[in-house]
């Protein structure tokens, strides 16, 4: 009966993580609105609950009850599958994230590789949504996002090679343990810069939110979506922000490892670092304008690609010579 107990434990863990993550992601939208509002010297949501604390729930209820419109000329099957295709990879990734030294759903020995691989599937949902909507704006958004995510995945992948070389493992827990002395961000600043930019692009955040650029492509790939399907895209975006922030914290900021002697549980450290990371994401959204498509590509291939290659070379050289 061992396998049944294991399965039940795993299912409970999955349920807990899914529930918590969904709630956190919903409140991430609230957090973003509040932070941006205060940067812009206004109040943000204030009406639902104390300081608008119930706003995400109200939003969720509204989106859930909204009429679900499928355009007449859309490819209906693909149109319906697309939001699911975006949401599922974003949540599957949580199965390997190390929340603390003891709490995780599963340990995979290709952990970080698994995250990269699964999150690369998110682009399918976007491309499918853009194509199935049968709208020109959506199609343009889908084309942009296909090119953008394909390119930036490469930089994302290459930028984590440096820390991985130092850690000598793909397992998320081992990577964290390898940083018990010094965080890798101090060894690998270049890699972190590239990783952060690529992460912004992968999650379609400002200044790389070209696939959905409201003012050019109206809303890009999700122009035609409404109700719950639209909410799925939204949730997926914030879920992936959480994922990339977690990966950044894990790879560069020592995961759940604390600073010095301050006695806090690992999970708290993890949440603190994650929060700081997410704050930077939101801060950037409030500050920067949007790149143009060709500039985005130029930045990627002419600036970040050589940088990250040099980083890998240097890391290898140093490791070969001194370690």
């Amino acid at each position, binding site marked *: 009966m061992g396998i049944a107990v294991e399965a039940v434990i795993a299912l409970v863990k999955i349920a807990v993580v899914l529930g918590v993550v969904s709630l956190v992601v919903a409140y991430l939208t609230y957090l973003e609105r509040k932070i941006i509002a205060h940067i812009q010297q206004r109040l943000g949501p204030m009406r639902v609950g104390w300081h608008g604390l119930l706003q995400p729930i109200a939003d969720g209820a509204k989106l859930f009850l909204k009429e679900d419109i499928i355009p007449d000329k859309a*490819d209906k099957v693909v149109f319906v599958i697309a939001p699911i295709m975006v949401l599922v990879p974003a949540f599957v990734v949580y199965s390997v994230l190390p929340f603390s030294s003891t709490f995780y759903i599963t*340990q995979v020995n290709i952990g970080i*590789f698994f995250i990269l*691989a699964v999150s690369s599937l998110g682009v399918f949902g976007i491309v499918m949504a853009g194509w199935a909507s049968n709208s020109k704006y959506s199609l343009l958004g889908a084309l942009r996002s296909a090119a953008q995510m394909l390119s930036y995945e490469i930089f994302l*992948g290459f930028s984590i090679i440096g820390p991985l070389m130092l850690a000598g493992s793909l397992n998320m827990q081992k990577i964290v343990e390898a940083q018990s002395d010094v965080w890798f961000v101090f060894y690998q600043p270049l890699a972190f810069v590239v990783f952060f930019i690529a992460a912004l692009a992968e999650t379609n955040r400002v200044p790389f939110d070209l696939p959905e650029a409201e003012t050019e492509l109206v809303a890009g790939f999700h122009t035609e979506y409404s109700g719950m399907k639209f909410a799925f895209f939204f949730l997926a975006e914030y879920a992936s922000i959480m994922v990339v922030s977690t990966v950044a914290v894990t790879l560069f900021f020592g995961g759940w490892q604390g600073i010095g002697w301050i006695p806090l549980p690992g999970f708290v450290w993890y949440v603190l670092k994650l929060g700081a990371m997410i704050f930077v994401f939101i801060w950037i959204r409030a500050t920067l304008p949007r790149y143009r498509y060709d500039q985005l590509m130029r930045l990627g291939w002419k600036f970040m690609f050589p940088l990250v290659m040099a980083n890998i070379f240097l890391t290898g050289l140093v490791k070969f010579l001194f370690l």
Partner: protein
Amino acid sequence: MELAFFYLFAAGIVGASLLMVTRANVIHAALLLVLAFLFMAGLFVLAGAEFLAGVQILIYAGGIMVLYLFSIMLMNVGVAVRLRQWHRQSVLALAAAVLLGAEVWAVLGRGGYPGAKAWGWGLGQTPGNVEALGEVLYTKFLFPFEVASILLLAAMIGAIVLAKREITR
């Protein structure tokens, strides 16, 4: 247990690829192929090839198939759906394929493979096959690896030259 999962994945792969070959809409076909690839990744995990499963998803599904979708969207599929889909030789081709299938079936039916060897790494076991695979890839197969990278480079240059437009302005 393992066998059940194998049948599940195999059924998924075969079903998706059968549907894929018969679709008129190229986008649908490509998406079905992605589905088949995801099932295949599951199959690889089952066979103890986790790294390969990752590569399958990352490169095949996340890279090559996105490239396909991108190119298909650049071309106009709307009209292509209304064209005749099947080649004139298709009945002949089907016959040939069935014949080939019968032959393979006959060969497989004879069986006679040596028994399985012990597998030092497998599902859920922590040392994993990533290290081992890397070891083999960068020692024993270093030369083929380098050749493959040259091939990729050549393909990249070729693709750029082929698809590049004459700059008239």
